[in-house]
């Protein structure tokens, strides 16, 4: 009964997705919200708070210790630089792949569509195994990139393949080619059309995908375990560093590195959003 009154109160004639049409909480839904929030807090909010809390318990000392530790610093540096590199590759390759999938037509296109989803369906540890087969010791190409920084880059590129493609693809599908035709008929070159018309439209999707792929890359662990060898100062990434601190019975320094990782992810989200807004405005 109470739901009915709430909906009648909100049900005005021109109600197309306006907040007013939504119900305020009823008794039942308030209970539901409470239960959901308790679970969400117990599972996500309180544990993540515990990480930041544990790291900051003794002031900034834990952070300076973590950052002045050469091995930790190198791990963070490698993680951030490779993630940035992989994200740049994804921005370019992901957009091109989406472009080819939407605008081009050739036999075998379906297969490409399928291949892109493989990294999503694959457990991360298996991703490492898979890459070892071509780039490891028994490589048919004789590459033997395992235990090198190239392997770190490869693993990150592998697990982040779908992000930009899958965010750009639907936007490209929805996009009208009329505007491009108009630009072309008015004498704009292909490059200009792409830069002034296509890119600004795609920018939000590209950077949404880039943000996801960066966040995924800096936090990657599973695919690197077998592939990168986790050599201190050479191929050890931040997640591996956190793991060895936990195993070594030093949760506080693990929490410090984890907090730094969370901060980097946060900064990245803000920066990518700013770039995206700037690009989108250029249209």
């Amino acid at each position, binding site marked *: 009964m109470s739901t009915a009154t709430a909906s009648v109160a909100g049900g005005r004639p021109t109600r197309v997705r306006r907040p007013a049409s939504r119900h305020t909480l009823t008794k039942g839904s308030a209970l539901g919200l409470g239960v959901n929030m308790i679970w969400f807090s117990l599972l996500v909010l309180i*544990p993540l708070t*515990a990480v930041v809390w544990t790291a900051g318990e003794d002031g900034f000392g834990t952070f300076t210790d973590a950052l002045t530790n050469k091995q930790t610093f190198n791990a963070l540096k490698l993680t951030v630089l490779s993630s940035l590199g992989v994200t740049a590759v994804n921005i370019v390759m992901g957009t091109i792949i989406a472009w*080819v999938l939407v605008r081009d037509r050739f036999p075998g296109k379906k297969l490409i569509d399928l291949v892109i989803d493989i990294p999503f369906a694959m457990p991360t*540890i298996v991703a490492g*195994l898979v890459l070892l087969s071509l780039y490891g010791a028994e490589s048919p190409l004789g590459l033997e990139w395992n235990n090198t920084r190239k392997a770190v880059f490869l693993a990150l590129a592998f697990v982040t393949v779908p992000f930009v493609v899958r965010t750009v693809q639907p936007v490209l599908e*929805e996009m009208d080619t009329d505007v491009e035709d108009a630009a072309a008929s008015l004498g704009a070159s292909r490059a200009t*059309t792409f830069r002034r018309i296509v890119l600004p439209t795609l920018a939000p999707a590209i950077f949404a995908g880039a943000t996801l792929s960066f*966040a995924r890359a800096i936090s990657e662990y599973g695919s690197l375990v077998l592939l990168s060898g986790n050599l201190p100062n050479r191929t050890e990434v931040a997640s591996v560093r956190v793991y060895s601190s*936990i195993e070594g019975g030093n949760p506080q320094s693990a929490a410090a590195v984890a907090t730094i990782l969370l901060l980097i992810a946060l900064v990245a989200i803000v920066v990518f959003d700013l770039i995206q807004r700037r690009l989108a405005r250029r249209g």
Partner: protein
Amino acid sequence: MASSQSTVVGVGSPALKWVLRLLVVGYLFFLVGWPSALIVRRTFEGGTQAFTDALGDPDVTHALQLSATIALFAVVINLLFGVGMSLLLVRYEFPGKRVLSALIDLPLAVSPIVVGLALILVYNPRYGWFGQTLDAHGIQVIFAKPGMIMATTFVALPLVIREVVPVLEDMGNDQEQAANSLGANAWQTFWRITLPGIKWAVVYGVVLSMARSLGEFGAVKVVAGNISGETTTAPVLVQQKYQNFEQQTAYAVSFMLVAAAVVCLIIVALLRPKDEKKGGATATAALKKENP
């Protein structure tokens, strides 16, 4: 006429077209296609022998069972939580809603290792915030199944919600209001109106969660500790077997894990009605178009 012209503009010159095609095919072939094909070939090098051997190994069967159990629990929890949370986020107004909706995506940006660390800091029996009390009551979370289920639930948490929310928004609540005004109670409205509308989004979210849960490695490894055998899940076993030079077994278990995920995805692709394909994606795109 207009359409043929637009494809010309859309694709670019033939030379550029070929360069782009080659670039895409080459990149995906070397990064994903070839390595994946190689691993499948190596798995089946001795026919199905690797599988017979693997399934005869009690460690393997135990790990597979454990992974399946944990994934099942995690998926059910995320299904209930996900649908409930989506309804609350889309259909109701309450203070802090925007913050909550942003926080829901948080697990996607957190490293699996950090997820494990976070749970350990709270539920560890020795120094955990709640862990000590729970331990005093004989409840063990870390180094046991509850912790592993929590870790798996954590990493897969946003998947159902991300699929369901756009569809719920797209659907609007006209029909629900109609049902209400005709005297249906909240429960009837949910079963008869809301659920059929979001059915495919829920199924897709569940399948994605299933795939993610079966394969979770880092977070589970941290909370499971090194208690040999008892808490070893299938992905962790893959690592152990590979490092023990039992590569064929590692390949066989990997293949089974990937096959399970792929079968789930294929079933959904087949079940899903044609016009609702990519429901989530197009719905979001449509929404973006509607109010940019």
